[in-house]
């Protein structure tokens, strides 16, 4: 660079302009702890209600049904029990439909009303909310906490700090223990936990949950949403101009200005720069900068702004739920005119119908028959052809069943090995070897259809059948 160029052409100048822009980039990458102010309001109440759905997670395992745990995911025995329904690995296709249903539900809700999951239901949001509530109860309002953060550790209230961390870790441990209770008998497992007598695996699960609850909800908080959570990013691309989200009405709010001696300048907008929307934000976002990646659409800024608008006697709703198009003065089309939600809802419907069909057609008995390939058939000394079959009977009921086996096929076939009733173990596959013999002279084809049928000996309404083949020598 020549020495004669004026200052504005100097490369440093352009760089500084760029740096100035970067200074406005308001994503807190964890260098400051966000101490969000808590204010009462409609959305605050709504948040507690939605958060309380997580009580199901904590209390669900204690539900009993017919003297057994109502919902138990018994991984060891490879069966799930949900009230009277038993789900075995064979029914796992339903699980994929359940996952599909919830994935599309996420998409549908997000396209209609933004990151509802993030703002109201996500465990990260809920646990962080509870953790900071405890923090406020023990260490005071945000201003006091910010002040304490600057003090050396020994000048802070050590006892309260210790109590806070202890409660956090206990909540983490309770989270972990509650998680494990879904996979075994809750009452037995509690007794095992209290006797310090559970498997290493359970301890690892509990430790993992404790550490990560403590770390994520106690320390990382909004950072998890900003750069750890994939759903935060996925949901960002699911919204469109018709999705309603907490939005600052800048037509009404700008130009913002502070109230001077309680008087508002008529030329200015309604925003009085009180910064309450920013102060209550759990992720440290200024909603007045528009929709942004840090916003989990929890609506707390709406509560804050409304309370201020009420105080200065302006209409509520300077920040409110609206879509980008609404902000530009267009009308929000009804949901049934928007293809995206419609497609999502139809996929959910298909998945729901599939799950419903699966649950109503679980059946009590399943049969599968494997034809022995080595040898395909043998000639017996009485001139009959013998085939060997492996009969596999799955008993989906909790009781042992006596099973009668029959076969339909060429006339005068005989089954060997099924003259007694077969015993089928509950919740498991019982396997039996049987032989079928057909006189050689009665075989008209190399392969004949054979249908195996099994019945419950006590109740022939419980039955299943399976189509197999009977193999014989070449017919010349």
């Amino acid at each position, binding site marked *: 660079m020549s020495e004669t160029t004026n200052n504005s052409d100097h*490369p440093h100048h352009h760089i500084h302009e760029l740096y100035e822009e970067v200074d406005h980039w308001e994503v807190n990458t964890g260098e400051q702890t966000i101490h969000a102010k808590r204010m009462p309001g409609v959305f605050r109440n709504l948040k507690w209600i939605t958060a309380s759905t997580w009580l199901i997670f904590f209390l669900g395992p204690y539900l009993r049904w017919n003297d057994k745990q109502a919902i138990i995911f018994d991984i060891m025995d490879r069966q799930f029990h949900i009230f009277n329904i038993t789900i075995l690995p064979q029914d796992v296709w339903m699980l994929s439909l359940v996952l599909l249903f919830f994935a599309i539900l996420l998409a549908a809700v997000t396209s209609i009303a933004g990151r509802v999951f993030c703002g109201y239901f996500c465990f990260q949001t809920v646990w962080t909310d509870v953790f900071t509530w405890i923090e406020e109860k023990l260490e005071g309002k945000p201003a006091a906490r910010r002040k304490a953060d600057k003090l050396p550790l020994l000048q802070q209230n050590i006892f309260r700090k210790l109590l806070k961390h202890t409660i956090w870790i206990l909540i983490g441990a309770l989270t972990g223990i509650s998680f494990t209770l879904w996979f075994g008998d809750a009452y037995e497992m509690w007794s095992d936990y209290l006797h310090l007598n559970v498997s290493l695996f359970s301890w690892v699960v509990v430790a993992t949950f404790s550490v990560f609850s403590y770390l994520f909800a106690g320390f990382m908080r909004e950072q998890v949403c900003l750069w750890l959570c994939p759903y935060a990013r996925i949901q960002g691309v699911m919204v469109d101009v018709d999705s309603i989200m907490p939005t600052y009405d800048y037509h009404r709010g700008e130009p913002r200005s502070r109230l001077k001696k309680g008087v508002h300048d008529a030329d200015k907008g309604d925003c009085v720069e009180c910064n309450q929307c920013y102060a209550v934000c759990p992720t440290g976002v200024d909603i007045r900068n528009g929709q942004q990646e840090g916003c989990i659409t929890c609506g707390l800024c709406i509560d804050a702004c409304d309370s201020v608008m009420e105080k200065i006697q302006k209409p509520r709703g300077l920040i409110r739920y609206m879509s980008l198009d609404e902000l530009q003065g267009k009308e929000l089309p009804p949901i049934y005119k928007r293809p995206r939600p419609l497609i999502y809802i139809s996929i959910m419907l298909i998945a729901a119908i599939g799950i419903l069909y699966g649950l109503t057609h679980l059946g009590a008995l399943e049969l599968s028959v494997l034809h022995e*390939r*080595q*040898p395909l058939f*043998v*000639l*017996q000394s009485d001139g009959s052809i*013998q085939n*060997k079959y492996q009969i596999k009977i799955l008993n989906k009921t909790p009781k042992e069943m006596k099973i009668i086996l029959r076969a339909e096929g060429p006339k005068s076939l005989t089954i060997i090995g099924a003259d007694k009733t077969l015993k089928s173990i509950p919740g498991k596959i019982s396997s039996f*070897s049987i032989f079928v013999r057909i006189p050689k002279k009665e075989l008209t084809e190399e392969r004949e259809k054979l249908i195996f049928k099994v019945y419950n000996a006590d109740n022939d309404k419980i039955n299943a059948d399976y189509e197999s083949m009977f193999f014989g020598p070449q017919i010349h």
Partner: protein
Amino acid sequence: MSEKNPFPNENNSGHIWDNDLRELLNDPPTWWRIGFHASWILVIVYTILYPSWPMLTTHYKGVMGWTAMGEYKEDLQSLEQIRAKYEDQLPGKSAAAIMADDELSNYVMKSAKVLFGDNCAACHGGGGAGNPSYPILADDDWLYGGTANEIITSITNGRKGVMTAHSKSLSTAEIDELANAVMKGEPTSSPLFMTKACFACHGPDGKGISAMGSANLTDGIYRFAEEDQLASIKYTITHGVNDASDPATRNAEMPTFGGSKLSETDIKKLAIYVHKLGGGK
């Protein structure tokens, strides 16, 4: 590189290119350093605990005394402990008693499948399907009897049946006549069956005598099954089986599996397995 540092107080190394591109002397991130130190500490701890450093003739064994072979043996032992519940019952029980017990015979079928694959399937085929010149075990035609105890005897001692070569004692026409009668499954329909003393071994009804291991000639199941079955029967009548006087004789020998080859329990298991393949008596 600039002589004078235009960016003082920012902890740079003094290496500056293009007036503004410079190298800072910041420490690596804490998480990275934790990972780095944790890694080398892990390597040291690991090499102390486990076999690691090669030495001239041997290697450093590690303070835990762990070996792959030791782990294998432990696993095997725990496997045998699980099997012991069944294995311990087997020596004291007869084959028939084992077969009467559903749980025990289930265990034996699973366990003997491996034994069968290792010792029997090479000749008799998987599932006892048989092979040319090797008998099918899945049917109910038995040369030496098909009860579990007879099968145990066959496996333990082996079998070597003998049939005399008839190239000298029978004419070609006579062999043809007998072969055709056997092919029809009615050996007694030929008077030669009696006059040439076939009945002496194969029994007066042609159904064989299991004490001698002679074949049943009436059921259409052939010991030496071949594509051209009539030619095969003629060959067997002409050259016999295991007849030392005829160099072209058929060789048919079941080796001995008793003694050092297989334990009594293993043979019992195999006999039950074979008995249940499809034709046990």
